[in-house]
């Protein structure tokens, strides 16, 4: 029994139960991403694990050790906030050194470790900078270095890239993912951005109704989200309601009523008139670089299909579902 064990944690704010009887395990050296919409309790869970908030019920364990009653400063966890919680009255070096200094690490080895950390996050030569003079990306790098410096057994990241622009975010996400893996760092990472989750996670845990609704590797979850909520969180678009006969405008997709997911990448569009499938009208065609996202209206449905060719709006196409395109959801 190693790694982080969250057992039956419940937290309420007054009447509102944010977390209910939540269980989660993060194995050693594993990066788990908590994915969920805003207000789903992701940050609350992170604060409970860090020890910044006491759970109303349940335990937090590391290996065999019960952390629930251990004060935050004795837990040996690292935490990176969404935006700039750097100490404004200290320079970059002093910020990164803080945890080491508090732990009583002697000055000489402290300086060495800080330099190593800064070089690890790509900020060589930034030691003497004032934290006011940093860009958004640099700020988050310093925050990461500060959290990693004392060698926490568990690193918690609370939407650390949330305030950065898209391009910077993609680059930093990739770098941090690689860094965590190379360090073998156990980490619990919170985000509402599925691309970030895909890029960084060993496993993704989707939060819903105060619990972990589903947990699995990115590919597992993408292929079979299991529930409508999880499918939405992962950014699936083609969620289709079926009638009692399991039918919709695309034909009979399942045995009975319910919602199914149609994987757009298993849908092929071709010239109409060859009779291979139902015919629809292209209502939108958005060029996305590598692919073009095409939306086709078939009867009362609109279905999104990634296409490698550009298709004109208004043209008629046949929509063909390949095997495995349809996945039933709860």
């Amino acid at each position, binding site marked *: 029994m190693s790694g982080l064990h969250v057992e039956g944690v419940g937290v309420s704010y007054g009447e509102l139960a944010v977390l209910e009887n939540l269980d989660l395990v993060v194995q050693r050296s594993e990066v788990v991403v908590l994915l969920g919409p805003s207000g789903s309790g992701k940050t609350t869970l992170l604060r409970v694990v860090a020890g910044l908030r006491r759970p109303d019920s349940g335990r937090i364990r590391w290996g065999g050790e019960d952390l629930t009653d251990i004060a*935050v*400063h004795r837990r040996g966890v690292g935490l990176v906030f969404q935006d700039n*919680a750097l100490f404004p009255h200290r320079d970059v070096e002093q910020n990164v050194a803080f*945890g080491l200094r508090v732990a009583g690490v002697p000055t000489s080895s402290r300086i060495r470790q800080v330099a190593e950390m800064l070089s690890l996050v790509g900020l060589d030569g930034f030691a003497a900078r004032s934290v006011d003079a940093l860009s958004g990306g640099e700020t988050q790098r310093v925050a990461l270095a*500060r959290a990693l410096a004392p060698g926490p057994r568990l690193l918690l990241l609370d939407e650390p890239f949330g305030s950065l622009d898209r391009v910077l975010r993609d680059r930093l996400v990739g770098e941090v993912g690689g860094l965590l893996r190379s360090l073998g760092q156990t980490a619990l990472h919170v985000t509402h951005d599925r691309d970030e989750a895909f890029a960084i996670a060993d496993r993704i845990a989707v939060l819903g109704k105060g619990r972990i609704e589903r947990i699995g590797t990115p590919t597992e979850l993408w292929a079979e989200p299991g529930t409508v909520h999880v499918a939405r969180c992962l950014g699936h678009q083609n969620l289709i309601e079926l009638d009692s006969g399991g039918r919709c405008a695309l034909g009979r997709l399942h045995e009975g009523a319910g919602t199914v997911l149609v994987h757009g990448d298993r849908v092929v569009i071709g010239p109409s008139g060859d009779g291979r499938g139902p015919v629809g009208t292209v209502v939108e065609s958005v060029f996305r670089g590598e692919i073009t996202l095409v939306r086709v209206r078939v009867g009362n449905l609109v279905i999104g299909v990634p296409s490698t060719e550009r298709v004109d709006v208004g043209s008629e196409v046949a929509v063909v579902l390949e095997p495995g395109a349809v996945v039933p959801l709860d």
Partner: protein
Amino acid sequence: MVALVPVTFLTAFFVYPITSILWRGATADIGALLESFGKPTFVRIVWFTIWQAVASTALTVVIALPACHLLALHRFRGRSALRAATTVPFVLPTVVVGGAFTALFDRLGLDGGAFRVHHTIWAVLLAHVFFNVAVVIRTVGSFWEGMGIGPEEQARTLGASSWQALRWVTLPRLGPALASAASIVFLFCLTSFGVILILGGPTMATLETEVWRHAVLRGDLPSATALAVVQLVAVVAAVAVTNRLQRRLVVPRRQQAGRLPKPDRRLLAANLAGLGLLIGLPVAVLLERSLSINGGYSFRNYSALADRVDLLPVSSLVALSNSLLFATLATGLAVLVGGLTSVVVVHGRHWTSRLLDLGMTLPLGASAVTLGFGMLIALDEPPLDLRSSRWLVPVAHALVGVPFVMRILVPTLRSVDARLREAAAVLGASPTRVRMEVDLPIAWRGLLVGAGFAFAVSIGEFGATSFLPRSPDRLTAPLALFRLLGTPGEALRGQAMALAVVLMGITACAVLAIERVRGPIRGGL
């Protein structure tokens, strides 16, 4: 535990004297007392006290707004110098302001004849505006700077004229800051003492001046008590309103919206001329007057400060050194008490923090005069007989200074982002360590700024000191100045002006030091 020191201090030197006033008032039948010195007189005093404060407040806000606009939204050479210059009047001792305006009226021939201003309400209003412009510039200006001009630009792109944008967008947005600033100015004017005594002349009567005249000049303690009780009630009400308005005021953080534009030439010129006339002229005339003697100019008025005149028990120079000593002691006390209280207010349990917050703000309003009078009647007999203690004056000054320390320190401590403490805790810092490593370094500047204010306040303190038993060798400089100003005669006038300039110099140094240290700290006067 931490709360013990400030609570003891506050109880002994503030609560006890104030309760003494109330106790005497309650046991002496206020109704009969008020009857005894005539109901119409009493109503006249109360009415005048309130309307002069209202008029002063309105004038101050109107006159300060253009300067707020200039300083908040523009960048130009000398901006911080101008800001500092507007702050100087606020911390100038009342007696110095009295002296400056006396000199001004004297030089402009406004102290008599058809255009007499000296010893009229106009003199008082003018001096109140002079004093309080800084309050409005600080409060409204920093709010304005923080809230930015995004919505105004929106309004302009939607077709609003600059006047309409001001009327419909800016003023409503400034509302909370205007209300807060006005309430503070009103409070200051309501408790104005030295200015009215010196510039209003012997017949102008507010609650403050009458408490002093009855208690100190006539030795009529019962009447003074009755007036003090009324004043206390009025001030507590005003403080409650001020606190409410202040609590609602959240100074927005400045959005990074690029650099500020340069001001329009005419705006800059008009502002400089206006502020120059209002602030610069009295100060300049005071300087000129202090150097002039028998139609020529020399430093003889200054060298005369070392000579004892019949009017005073010691020379002005001795009074100055007394003042410096008292101010140093008072600053130490105020920083100790105010610092501890601030920590309790920000981090203490709910009810203790609320209680101390209110308790410590009261001396700011509960008027130096009321405080001095309370100490006069309470601390001259056992259990606390401090009549002859050299600590009496510093303690009174510290009480007046503590709210200033807190006004700076509490917001600074509050502004420490909770996540910084959390970050420190997660990194392994114990709660005590978090205080030392996060709160203290961030609040350090605030503490220095507060100390500077406490010092400046003590150096010029007049209201409370004017009640305290005066062993001749404990005369403070403001008291000496007041007596010099109240006596006619060219030589004494010249010496008074020189003394006023020295006091002004000391306070100006304190303010400049504050401005240097202050840096990014905003808000809270």
